[in-house]
């Protein structure tokens, strides 16, 4: 898959680096070591430089997402309505750290600076689906639901 993307950018220069990395991440879900090695040969650019760039930006990840990928909005409006508690609870109950994936590959957690849905805060996204206006009760329900679903998935 990565070869195909690189073929598309056959005469690319350094300014195409970010779009290429984005396409790789879109197709395989993260930036694998092999893909960066391949890109480095393709662009004739040291892989350390590519890592230097990729680690600078929030978008790029170097580990696959979990089966259940949770994004928590931590904008100002969500912060005022308890985004910190939400992050803490997720970390505690789903045993996952911010920016990491659990070892069984079930859950991954990402904190986003602002999703732009301030009217509906606090907001989280579970596999791309929004859950808005979270209250203590609906959030608890959601967590239980997630634990239940992914426990059965793992069996």
């Amino acid at each position, binding site marked *: 898959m990565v070869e195909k993307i690189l073929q598309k950018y056959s005469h690319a*220069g*350094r*300014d*195409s*680096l*970010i*779009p290429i*990395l*984005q396409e790789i991440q879109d197709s395989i879900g993260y930036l694998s070591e092999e893909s960066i090695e391949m890109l480095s040969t393709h662009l004739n650019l040291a892989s350390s430089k590519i890592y*230097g*760039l990729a680690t*600078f*930006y*929030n*978008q*790029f990840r170097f580990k696959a997402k979990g089966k259940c990928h949770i994004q928590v909005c*931590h*904008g*100002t*409006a969500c*912060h*005022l309505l308890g985004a910190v508690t939400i992050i803490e609870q997720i970390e505690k109950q789903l045993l996952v750290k911010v920016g990491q994936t659990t070892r069984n590959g079930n859950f991954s957690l990402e904190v*986003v*600076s*602002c*999703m*732009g*849905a*301030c*009217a*509906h*805060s606090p*907001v989280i996204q579970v596999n791309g689906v*929004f859950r*808005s206006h979270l209250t203590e009760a609906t959030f608890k329900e959601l967590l239980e639901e997630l634990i239940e679903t992914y426990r059965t998935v793992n069996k």
Partner: protein
Amino acid sequence: MESGNTILNATSLVNRIRGVKETENLSDIDDYISRLKREKLTKTVVLVGVTTSSVAAGAIETKSAIENYIAERELDIDIVEVGSNGLCSFEPLMDVQIPGKSRIVFRNVKANDVPFILDGTLNNYLPPDNVVGQYRSQLHQPWMGIPFLDEIAFFKGQSRDILALSGIISPASIEEYIAFGGYSAFTMAISRLTLEDVCNTIEKSGLRGRGGGGFNTGQKWKMALAETANQKYFVCNADESDPGAFMHRLMMESNPHQIIEGIAIASYAIGASKAYLYTRNRYSITVQRLENAIQQAYNAGLLGHNILDSGFSLEIILRKGPGAYVCGEETALISSLEGKRGAPTLKPPFPTQKGLFGKPTVVNNVETIANIPLILRKGAENFALKGTEKSKGTKLFSVSGKVNITCLVEVPLGVSISTLVELAQGVPKGRKLKAIQMGGPSGGCTVPEKMNTPIDFETLKAEGLAMGSGGITVLDDTVCIIDTIKFFINFIQYESCGKCIPCREGSRRMYEILESITRRPVNDEGHNTLERFKGIILLESLAEVMRDTSLCGLGQTAPNPVLSALKSFREEFEEHIFDRKCAASVCRNLRTFYIDVDKCTGCSACAKKCPTNAIIGTPRSPYFVVEEKCIGCGVCETTCKFGAVFFK
């Protein structure tokens, strides 16, 4: 949309605005335009607002519920996706227009409300709980007893120029934008105006950069125009990344063609044949709508090689920013476009002399660009009518936080801060307004007493505030100022690019100091306390050093929240430092826990878990907390099965 033998499309509309003699029948085109403007309807139209914000509220579900409703009853009704009219708290928004009748706006239309509302509306009954108002139109019969939108305080208090078409037109249709007068400014500019003419008009209008800097846009363009180079670039910065600000996202999603037209005019004015539009990858709806808009403009012949035989060629490239707050700074944005880490560089040389790939480059904020077509269409004088002497025109603000209506508004510069809070209908009932944070992490907060301060570049600067890009967060008395500032500084220290020391180290130290204020030390003796006080004493001077010595705007403005809060809320800092109390009970480590004597069963579970042995008592009779020993960790609260532990 077929009429006779000729297929009417964007190209014939473009020919029409250019005044080119056409082969098509003129009355056909007029008819087509009035259909696009929804003046003449042959069937009912249901319009759903689909934006990033409304999707979070369930707009997609609402839309499919409408589709189901129509399919089940086999009705002949069109569904159109539109943008947002700014009333974010009322989302999902749905408009209905029945032929001959005024268009009507419904609020909070959840998927299961759809059948009820549509049943009613199609049978001339409007459910009163969901109606916002109706559009005023000479051509349509108004609904009885329903307020017109321009009579509603929210719209009455605004001056909507940039947002004039937001929520009204379909963002996916270039035809509708042209029907409402779109692209006429661009076609006029390339056929009749010289590059200097355009720059002069913009300079005369007094438009100043909306990204926060406030530099005169026309002058910036002239600087780039004066440079001689074989290639010049135009860059539109649409990487809105302030936490708690969403105005540019909504504006772009509601009317993307306005941005494309603005970029095309700006590129023409500085003689650039290549333009970059830099938005953020995460905003998937924004990216998708902008991509579509660019493609449509190419298809209509409004972009590409030798546009409309004028000899001007333009290529617009959409770049999806991978997410870095510092890329809002123009030199950092240029580095990012070049495929490097988004670190700012020293100025001079300014980007207008040596920018992208070493060529003259103009970087403008997306809101600045949205103003350009309007200025050319209506004239510089018309633009300058609004605003104050030095700050002309209107400005977008997103008002969020502890308000009744989280919204996107457009007001003339020079109105007071209180106007914005009034538009958002104030703080929730029973609460007291405490502060207003302007400009996100790079702005300052102001107290209710100073609410009459006019919003313009000079006055805000004198007050130690900043307009920033226009994100306003309203704070009420349930909010702790220290906690909010800590949130902003934490954001800055995470987003700092790390190139210059004052910003990289300063923001981290500042965060540590604020953290130490909101943390309760285990004991109050010895070296620790001294160190802690030393940090607090130095907070103010650290902020000043950071402001004066940082390389770019991010570091220079980062201490603003701290400095302005120290000015306005000194007592609250002192309360946290000396009394170890947080009046709003937000700083969790400063809470003191108590045990409700009536609820406690004396099970001793909390006493066993308490890390400082602060809970004492005898089993089977109520326990109690020794205040001096409590570190506020909250373990007892989570342990207690009877809900007997509470905090003050």
